[in-house]
C-alpha cells in the first residue's frame, strides 16, 4: 500500500499546486480520521496504564526526530469509536508503545478515572509526570515533583480524579515541561456528556454497525455537552504543536553519550527557541492527511483529514500544547466557539443561549482546548454549486450537469433536508444539504480557458461540487475538465478548504514549502459515503 509520503515533499516546487503528478499517481483515496481514542472500562470507572518512553517520529522531509511519547503499558480496555474497527493496523487496540500525541483518553462524565504512569524515559530524564488540565487530581506512589507527583524509573505514579464535567481537556508532562512537552509528552482527555439529548440529537449508539443520517457513524457521542443544542454529525480533533529539532538532537546526543544507568540529567538549551517543524496531531503536511494508524507512522497514529457533507455540523476539538500561539485559519466558513477547557460559554442573561464568538481563525492559546461547531451549506453563493441547471436527460444519452435530477424542497431553514415537504421524490436520490434559493441558478462568470490556468491537486475539474458528467454535443458551458489521465486528491470532486496556520511561515517543514501546519477539509457531495473505517 502506498501513500502520499515524505519523499514527495522533496520534489515539491515553488508552488504547492505544482506538486509532482507522480506523487498523485501513487496516492489512493482514504478518509479515515474521526477522533480515535482508548477507553478505560465500563461501569463508572476508567483505568489507563501509560508509560513514557522515547521513540523516533517521522517528518515529511525525511527526518526521524528523537521524541518522547506517552503510550500503553498494557493493552487498553477498549477503543472508540467502535465503528472505526481494528483495521489492518500494526497498532494493537489503537495505542502504540509510545506515541505523539499521547493516546486520547475517552471517558464518560462522572467516571472515576485512574491513570497509572511508568517512566521508561532515558536516564537523563529521571522523572516525568502528567498534568490533567481542569481536573482535581490526587496522586499516589511516585516521587515528589514540582507541579504534581512524578514517576521515576523505580516508582510509578497513580493519578485519580473524577471526570466531573464533559469536554475536551489537554494533558501534558509537568516535569521540566519546557523540555518534556517539546519532546512530545502531551495528549488529550475527552469527557463525554452524561445527557443523551435524545430529544434534540436523536438516539446514539457506539457499535460497529452504527449509522447516522444514513451514513456510517463515527461520533463518540450525540452531543458535545449536556446542552441540547450541542448535537453534531461528525467530529475531529487537531492538536497543534511545534518542534525545534536542535533540542531533540541535543537530547539524542546526550542519550548516546551515556551508556550507564547513572547518566546526568539532560542539559539542553531551550531558549532562544527556533521551531522548524509545525505539527497537527504530531504530523506535518502532507503526512497528516494520510490515514490514522497508517503503518508508516507507528508512533504518530492520529491524522488531520476532516471530511463532511453540506449541511452537517462538525464538532472541532482544537488543542494547543506548544509554547507559541498558532492562528489556525479555517477556510470555508465561521465556527461557533462552544467552550474553552470544558467550560461552556453561555449567555449571562438566560444561562442557556450560546455566547461564544464566531471565529474564522482559532487563536490556539498555549495549553488551551477549544470546542467549536462548524458547518457549511454554500448558502448565499447565488449560483447552483451542484449545476442542476445543466441537468438535462437526453434520450439514449448520458446526462448533463451532475446527472442529479433532484429538485430542492426547502425546509423551515431554507435547505433541502429530510424535514422538507416532500422529503424526496420517489426514484430520485435526494440532494440533501442544498440551499434551495440557489437551485438552478447559473454560475455568474465565464471561467477562464482551461489552457491558461494551473489545476490544483484537490481541484475537482469543474467549479461545481461533485463529479460532473459532460455530454459533448450540448452547446452549454458545463465544466473545465481536467486533462485526460489527470488524477486528483479528491476523486469525489468535493470542495476542498485549506485549514492552516496563518503565521504562514508555519506551513513549512524545516524551510520547505509546502508542509507544516496545514490540512484540507473536504466538503464531500451529499451522496458520497465518508468511510473512516481502518
Amino acid at each position, binding site marked *: 500500500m502506498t501513500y502520499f509520503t515524505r519523499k514527495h515533499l522533496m520534489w515539491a516546487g515553488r508552488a504547492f499546486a505544482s506538486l509532482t503528478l507522480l506523487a498523485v499517481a501513487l496516492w489512493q483515496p482514504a478518509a479515515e480520521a474521526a477522533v480515535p481514542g482508548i477507553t478505560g472500562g465500563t461501569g463508572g470507572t476508567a483505568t489507563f496504564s501509560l508509560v513514557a518512553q522515547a521513540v523516533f517520529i517521522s517528518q515529511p522531509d525525511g527526518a526521524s526526530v528523537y521524541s518522547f511519547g506517552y503510550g500503553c503499558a498494557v493493552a487498553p480496555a477498549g477503543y472508540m469509536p467502535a465503528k472505526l474497527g481494528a483495521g489492518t493496523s500494526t497498532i494493537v487496540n489503537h495505542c502504540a508503545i509510545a506515541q505523539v500525541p499521547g493516546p486520547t483518553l475517552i471517558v464518560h462524565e462522572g467516571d472515576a478515572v485512574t491513570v497509572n504512569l511508568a517512566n521508561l524515559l532515558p536516564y537523563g530524564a529521571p522523572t516525568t509526570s502528567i498534568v490533567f488540565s481542569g481536573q482535581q487530581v490526587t496522586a499516589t506512589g511516585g516521587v515528589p515533583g514540582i507541579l504534581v507527583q512524578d514517576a521515576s524509573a523505580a516508582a510509578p505514579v497513580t493519578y485519580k480524579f473524577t471526570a466531573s464535567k464533559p469536554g475536551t481537556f489537554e494533558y501534558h508532562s509537568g516535569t521540566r515541561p519546557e523540555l518534556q512537552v517539546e519532546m512530545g509528552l502531551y495528549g488529550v482527555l475527552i469527557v463525554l456528556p452524561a445527557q443523551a439529548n435524545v430529544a434534540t440529537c436523536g438516539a446514539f449508539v457506539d457499535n460497529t454497525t452504527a449509522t447516522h443520517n444514513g451514513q456510517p457513524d463515527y461520533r463518540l457521542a450525540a452531543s458535545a455537552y449536556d446542552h441540547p443544542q450541542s448535537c453534531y454529525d461528525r467530529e475531529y480533533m487537531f492538536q497543534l504543536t511545534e518542534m525545534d529539532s536542535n533540542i531533540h538532537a541535543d537530547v539524542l546526543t546526550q542519550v548516546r553519550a551515556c551508556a550507564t544507568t547513572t547518566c546526568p540529567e539532560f542539559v539542553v538549551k531551550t531558549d532562544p527557541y527556533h521551531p522548524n517543524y509545525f505539527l497537527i496531531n504530531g504530523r506535518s503536511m502532507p503526512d497528516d492527511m494520510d490515514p490514522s494508524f497508517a503503518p508508516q507512522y507507528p508512533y504518530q497514529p492520529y491524522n488531520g483529514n476532516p471530511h463532511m457533507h453540506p449541511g452537517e455540523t462538525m464538532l472541532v476539538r482544537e488543542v494547543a500544547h506548544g509554547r507559541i500561539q498558532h492562528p489556525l485559519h479555517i477556510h470555508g466558513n465561521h465556527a461557533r466557539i462552544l467552550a474553552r477547557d470544558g467550560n461552556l460559554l453561555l449567555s*449571562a442573561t438566560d444561562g442557556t443561549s450560546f455566547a461564544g464568538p464566531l471565529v474564522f481563525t482559532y487563536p490556539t492559546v498555549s495549553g488551551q482546548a477549544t470546542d467549536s461547531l462548524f458547518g457549511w451549506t454554500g448558502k448565499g453563493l447565488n449560483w447552483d454549486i451542484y449545476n442542476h441547471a445543466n441537468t438535462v436527460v437526453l434520450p439514449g444519452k448520458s446526462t448533463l450537469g451532475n446527472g442529479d435530477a433532484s429538485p430542492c424542497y426547502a425546509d423551515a431553514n431554507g435547505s433541502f433536508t429530510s424535514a422538507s415537504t416532500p422529503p424526496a421524490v420517489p426514484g430520485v436520490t435526494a440532494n440533501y444539504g442544498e440551499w434551495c434559493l440557489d437551485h438552478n441558478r447559473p454560475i455568474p462568470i465565464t471561467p477562464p480557458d482551461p489552457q491558461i*490556468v494551473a489545476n*490544483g491537486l484537490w*481541484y475537482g475539474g469543474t467549479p461545481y461540487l461533485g463529479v460532473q458528467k459532460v455530454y459533448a454535443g450540448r452547446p452549454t458551458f458545463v465544466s473545465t475538465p481536467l486533462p485526460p489521465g489527470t488524477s486528483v486528491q479528491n476523486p469525489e470532486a468535493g470542495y476542498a478548504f485549506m485549514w492552516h496556520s496563518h503565521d504562514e*511561515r508555519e506551513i513549512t517543514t524545516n524551510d520547505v514549502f509546502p508542509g507544516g501546519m496545514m490540512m484540507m477539509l473536504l466538503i464531500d457531495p451529499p451522496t458520497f459515503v465518508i468511510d473512516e473505517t481502518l
Partner: protein
Amino acid sequence: MARNKLFWTAMIALLGVSAALPAGAQSFRVQCPNGTVLHHSSDVNNPYERIVSTVDNNHQIVNTIVGPDAAHANKQIKCQQISGGDGYATMADGQQVYLFAFGPLSGIQNITAGLPGTVPAAEFNGWLNGAAAPFSGPTFAGDRSVANNAGIKEPELIMNNGVLAGNAPGPMMAIDEDDEFFLTLSNVGMIMRPDLFEQHTVHFHGYPNASSYFDGVPDASVAINIAGSFTYYYTAPDAGTYFWHCHITPPEHLQMGMEGQLYVRPRQNRLAQGASLYGALAAYTASPAGSQPVGYPDVSFPPEDCTKDLLCTTPLPPSNTATRLETAATVLYAYNDGDGSTRYDAGADYPIQMMGFDPNFHFIGMTFNPEPFADMKDKYFLLSGRGYPDTIGGDHGVPGPVTTVDSDGLRRLSQPQPTLIQIHKGGPTQRALLRISNLSVTEYHTLATVGIPMTVIAFHARLLRDMSGNNLYYNTNSITIGGGESLDVILDATNVPAGTYFLYTTNLDHLSNDAENFGGMMTEIQVL
C-alpha cells in the same frame, strides 16, 4: 498610442509563456456585467448579461455574451480589477524593498486617494453621472496623466499599468451587503523575476460559505497563469471586516506583500433618517421564507434563523427605540446592530492592516536564492504598508500617497493608504471605526491607545453578541491578534479633550524601522 519600452520588455519576458499556449487560448478578459439574474439592469428588454450558445458547422460550441449597457447598470453590481505582479515600496527609513504585489487596474482615482477601488458596474464600464466616462489615465507608466475610476480592459494598457505597479497593501475593496462583486485578477508577471512563472490568486479571508472555486486556494481550484485573467465572483450576505490575499505559496507571497483590505458595509446604512433600527432588523429577521425579504431597502438575501442556526451572524437585540440618527452622509454603522451601538461618523472609518516585512527575505525574493522560512524575522513593522511617521504622511512628509522609483526609473504609486485617524468633536457621534486586521506571517501583534479607550465591537467580522441578543462589547486599551485575524474597534472621543493621541504597538521592539530605533507600527489619533 506609443508602446513604450516597458511594454515590449514585458512582452518579451512573456514570450516563453505565450509560446507554450495553444492557438486560441484567451489572455486578459475583464468581466463586469451591467445586469445579472439577481440584479436586473434598468433596461427591461435586456435585463441581464447571459451567454448565448450555438453550434457551428464544425460542431464547435460558439458562445456569445449579450447584455445591457453601462448606462442601464444596476447599482448593486460592483466591479474591480487588480494586477498580480511585482513592484517596490519605500520604508519609513528611506529603504526600498522589493514586493510581489497587487496593483490597481480600476478605481485608480480612488486608490490614489487612499480609498477602496471598488466602483459600481456603470463607472467601471465607462459611465458616470449620466455621461460616458471610459478609462482615461496613463497609457504607459510615467506619463503623469491622472486616471479616473473606469476599468482597464485593453491588454496593452493592462500590461503598461500593471507591470511593476504593485502596491503594499494591494488595492482596497469595499462592498455593501446585498451587492454582487465581480473581481478580475490579471496576472501581469513579475518582471524582476523572469525565472518565475508564478500564478497568483485572491483568497477572500473569512468569507462565509465560500465555494472552493472562488476561494483562491490554488490546490483546491485553478490559478491563473501569466497573461491571463480570472474573474472572482462574490456576494455580500454578511457585513464585516475581512481581508484578502494571494494564496500561492503563502509564506512567500504574503511576506512579499500580496495582501489587501476588504470590508462589507451593512444594509442598515440604507435606512432612511428616523427609521427604527430595531424595527428594521426585527422585520428582516421575521421575513417569511421563500418571499422577498423586508425590513431594509434593496435586500437580496434572506435572513438567518438565529433560534436554530448556530452560525447566525446577527441575533436580535433586546427591544429598543434607537432610530437612524442622521442621514447616511453623516452617520454610518459597522453592523446591522438593531440598536445603533456600532454607529460612527461617516468618513471616520479606518481600515488598518498590521503587516511585517523581513528585508532580508525581500532581498532574497528579488534575487535567486533559497528562502529561509523558519528564520523569517520581520524588521519593518507596518500599518497598511507604512511605518511611522509615514503612517500619517506621504512622500517627504506631505500627506497623501507614498510613491517609489522603480527599477526602470519611473516613479509609481506604492503605498496609497495613510492611517492617520481623525475624530471631530463637532461630529454627530464623535466616534471612529477602526477595521483592524493582522496579515503578519510571523507574529501576533498588539495595538494600544493612550488617552482614548477602545471598544471592541466585533471579532472576525462578526458582531460580539451572544445568541440571546446581548452585546458582548468590551472596553480595553489594547487588542492582540495574530496573522489571519481581524476585529473592529470604536474610538469614542465624547469625553476626550482635543489633542493628538497615539495608536501604537506595545510589542516595543516593533516600534522601529529596521535599524532605526524609532517609528514602526504606530500612528496618530487626532481629536479635532
